[in-house]
């Protein structure tokens, strides 16, 4: 076993996180097979039924089965998490590596732009963008990715700054490798550890952001079932239908918690020194 696996499997909490994440992915993928009811079909005879054997998590104000809707909601969360973090990591890695490799004026310009983007409270920025876009699943993923790359850029740049002075990089430069080749083949693979951690910790942040936007009613639009949507619709029936507010939130909590445990486990197993780099990163979640 590699040292990474040995360290990772010794961390029980991280393993728990990994197992739950795997289960969630499984539930999301198998949602059409697992959902007991059609998540989109309203039924006027079943409006706001409390949890029962037939509807384990109750029904909503249109008589739709909450369990089925939550299973489909897991698909949205999963998709938003992976795609938007994918976008953020691509942008962050490109800008961070250019800044770290080129240095000087290019570096200063890119990093001031990062500072600038970090001055905007993320939710305000997202609201402003979404006001004039037709909110679809793709626009939501896009804007969450476009507003979440700054931390990755900083991490990648920091890695590049230390890696570009190392012998193997200097060697490949001196034998005439092109800048792109040096970056792509030699530096980037060595800088990927913190990026992997940033991805695992970025997914829950994106899921939280998406559910917040959907809760405000400007995220993924109905009839798509998302956890945030169910909460948004449920808040009007807060006094009579607690199950609409409790279960979706619990699902978000468990999901985010497991990804965080998994991410921290990966981080500690890869390199305990990364702790410090992520301390300041986690401070700006929203």
């Amino acid at each position, binding site marked *: 076993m590699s040292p990474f696996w040995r360290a990772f499997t010794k961390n029980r909490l991280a393993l728990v996180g990994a197992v739950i994440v795997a289960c969630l992915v499984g539930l999301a993928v198998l949602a059409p097979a697992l959902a007991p009811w059609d998540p989109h079909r309203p039924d006027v005879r079943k409006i706001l039924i409390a949890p029962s054997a037939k509807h384990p998590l109750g029904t909503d104000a249109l008589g739709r089965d909450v369990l089925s809707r939550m299973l489909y909601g897991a698909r949205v969360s999963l998709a938003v998490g992976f795609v938007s973090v994918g976008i953020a990591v691509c942008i962050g890695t490109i800008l961070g590596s250019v800044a770290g490799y080129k240095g000087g004026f290019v570096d200063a310009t890119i990093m001031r732009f990062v500072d600038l983007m970090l001055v905007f409270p993320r939710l305000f920025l997202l609201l402003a963008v979404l006001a004039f876009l037709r909110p679809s699943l793709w626009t939501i993923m896009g804007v969450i990715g476009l507003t979440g790359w700054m931390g990755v850029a900083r991490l990648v740049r920091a890695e590049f700054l230390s890696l570009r002075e190392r012998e193997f990089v200097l060697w490949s430069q001196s034998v005439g490798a092109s800048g792109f080749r040096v970056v792509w083949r030699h530096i980037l693979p060595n800088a990927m550890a913190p990026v992997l951690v940033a991805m695992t910790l970025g997914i829950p942040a994106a899921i939280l952001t998406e559910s917040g936007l959907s809760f405000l009613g400007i995220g993924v639009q109905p009839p798509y079932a998302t956890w945030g949507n169910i909460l948004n619709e449920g808040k009007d029936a807060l006094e009579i239908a607690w199950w609409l507010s409790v279960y979706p*939130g619990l699902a978000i909590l468990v999901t985010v918690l497991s990804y965080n445990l998994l991410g921290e486990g990966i981080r500690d197993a890869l390199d305990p020194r990364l702790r410090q780099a992520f301390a300041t990163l986690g401070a700006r979640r929203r």
Partner: protein
Amino acid sequence: MLLYALRRLLLALPILLGITFVSFIVIHLAPGDPVAVTGDPDAPLTKEAREALIKEYGLDQPLPVQYWRWVSRLVRLDFGRSFSPDGRPVLEKIAERLPITLLLNVIEMLIIVAFAVPIGVLSATRQYSLFDKVTTVFVFVGFATPDFWLALLLIILFAVQLGWLPPSGLRDPNAEYLSFWTQRFDFVKHLVMPIAVATFGGLAGMSRYMRQSMLEVVRQDYVQSARAKGLSEGVVIGKHALRNAMLPIVTILGLSLPGLIGGSVIVEYIFAIPGMGQLMVQAVFERDYPVIMGNLVIVAALTLVANLFADVAYGLVDPRIRVGRRRR
């Protein structure tokens, strides 16, 4: 010190210009012109009204011209007029809501620091104790709890079931008939839930950093020598270690500000608090683009100013920073 503060201020100016640039781009790169989607979709603007708006805002001009006009009006603190039926100046709308958001955020900051520092210190000095384990669980749960969900749960429990706290707003509808002190008490009662929700996540994070920072400091040699010369544990931790452990916290506090202010969107929306966040959500629903742009600029500028304060505060507590050493 003054020189250091001035240098930070100068560095902030281009960022301020950048804020206006990003705010402008964000709105104008969206497909479709702002006027086409402005206002209530059920009552579309008449053709004349549309053209008047386009003229007034110069939306028929090329983008660089529009940007230049907009910025030159901003410099004179002219943020334009709201597109909503009242048509009031944007700055006036923001000005009446800003104090509430600021008040909430300042209270939240104070509470976070007041609780996070002792929690962090205690769990660091008693590492792996029961207290440490309980706070670690709290930290992980706090990080993962969606604030809007926590708000809903608190409303169900304290407003609906128990009826102890008001579910929304800032004051009782009959507040004017209450005595002076009852009014104050009523106001505080309205603030309890919003502030509890807004501080929860931040408190979790901050006590984690405080613990981490303290753990690193107590391993250092000077702490050992303080112990060796016979100082009591309270003095060693409370005086020698704490001051250095607080240093990174100042920075993280500054960095977490955008998050805190962003969180006020959700909190103000759920608890119907008339602040900047609620104004923003309303403006987005009404597609009131002068208000959206104005709001974005003001909020970002506020964060910038707060970061500036954090930088200067950092310089005050850490002499190494203000004596030379360029940024990063």
